[in-house]
């Protein structure tokens, strides 16, 4: 029970991952994104080592199809995994094992993969894809968020006892090797995708301030001064 999107921004080459699920703290199990290498996300029944192995292989220049074959060769339970891979050039590969709980499936698009399991149906994947494609000129983090919202609004996750809410969600975007540009998470919430939008929009207000004070701390104002300089919220 999870739905996700991995993507490469065709304009900037930035790599991104968006995930949401009924499980708690999904963002704490997303090691598979590295600028200059690619993105790999294993879900459903997760083999935790997969994503880091995949990054090592992607960094060496292996294709996503080659990486997938290597993961399959190393895993007797490959049939229970759902895996999506994108490389630094935007090539993709995806696998939804027959052991994944229904409904499960994926869609490989141009530079992205939408995929999920324990979903209401294929219309959820369609919703993720439509959300991602809605505004191709937007920053990748907001395209990923729109994709998650599209999946949620198309019905999201449905398990054996009916609809399952999103309890955790996360978005990561990388354009440098040693840290993420965007690294925003909601680990435990009743409406995690909605909360993730709140977190991401708040972070965007601070993004430049946080980055600049790291690069040129000698020129930085204090955070108290920065907060005081923000326009007051209309609804405050």
């Amino acid at each position, binding site marked *: *029970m999870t739905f996700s999107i991995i993507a490469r921004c065709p304009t900037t080459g930035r790599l991104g991952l968006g995930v949401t699920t*009924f*499980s*708690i*703290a999904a*963002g*704490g*199990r997303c*090691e598979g994104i590295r600028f200059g290498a690619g993105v790999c996300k294993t879900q*459903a*029944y*997760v*083999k*935790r*080592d997969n994503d*880091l192995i995949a990054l090592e292989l992607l960094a060496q220049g292996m294709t996503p199809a080659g990486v997938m074959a290597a993961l399959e060769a190393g895993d007797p*339970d490959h049939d*229970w*995994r759902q895996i999506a891979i994108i490389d630094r050039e935007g090539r993709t590969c995806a696998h939804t094992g027959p*052991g994944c*709980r229904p409904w499960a499936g994926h869609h490989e698009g141009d530079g992205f993969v939408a995929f999920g399991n*324990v979903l209401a149906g294929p219309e959820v994947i369609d919703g993720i894809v439509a959300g991602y494609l809605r505004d191709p000129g937007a920053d990748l983090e907001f395209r990923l968020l729109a994709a998650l919202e599209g999946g949620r609004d198309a019905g999201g996750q449905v*398990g*054996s*006892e009916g609809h*399952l809410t999103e309890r955790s969600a996360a978005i990561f975007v990388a354009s*440098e*090797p*040693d*840290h*993420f540009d965007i*690294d*925003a*998470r*909601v*680990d*435990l919430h009743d409406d995690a995708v909605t909360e993730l939008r*709140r*977190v991401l929009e*708040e*972070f965007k207000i*601070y993004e430049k301030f*946080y*980055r600049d*004070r*790291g690069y*040129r*701390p*000698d020129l*930085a104002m*204090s*955070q*108290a001064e920065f907060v005081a300089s923000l326009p007051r919220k209309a609804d405050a």
Partner: protein
Amino acid sequence: MTYTILGRCAKTGRLGIGIATYSITVGRYAHSTRSNAGVTVSQANANENNNAIALRLLAQGLAAPAVLEHLKANDAWHSYRQIGVIDRTGAVAAYTGSNVRGWAGEVTGENYVSTGNGLRGQHVAEAIAKGFLAEPGADLEHRLLTALEYGRDAGGQGNATTHRTERSAALQVSSRHSHPDIDLRVDLHDKAVDELRRVWTVYKQYEGYYADRGRNPRGAIGQEAFMASMKGA
């Protein structure tokens, strides 16, 4: 303004960080642990590349003081940074640059670094260390959370006249896997340390289930069935 505990469990060798701050999404600075390498933090006008560099040096076996010297030598603005490092032997190093704002400093001992800036005073850093040492036999993640709670309860961030709440917090622990054992976050909240304790308490109920269903998917039950079994227990 931030306060942080870095800790190593002397019994198990597990390595971890607990961090809380007025800034939002502080977890982005807490990709701080690597199995069999060490744990590190760079805060106060954080140099966002430092953690990755420090973990690579620790993985090569450099001792904590040598790692700290490399980070300083690599950074023209290190006088604006606050850095902590523990290596896999439990040796520690910590540094507070002269240009870091507010009360800033550290309390260190074997296997731990308590470090903070923009704090109400030295007593906050001392309380964090005291919290870490309060239950030496407990799981490392509980000890790290307790350290943050002691820091919060000692006054946390601010100065003589103002207090700043914790808006974000994070917890990460690594042991023997290539990925962390525990990686939990609160990115935007009015009481982030309280919320982090709540997230951890709930997560602990699922931790074994999440690990087992991945290792043994053929025998795994669905999460709804697992939750029903918890209620029945």
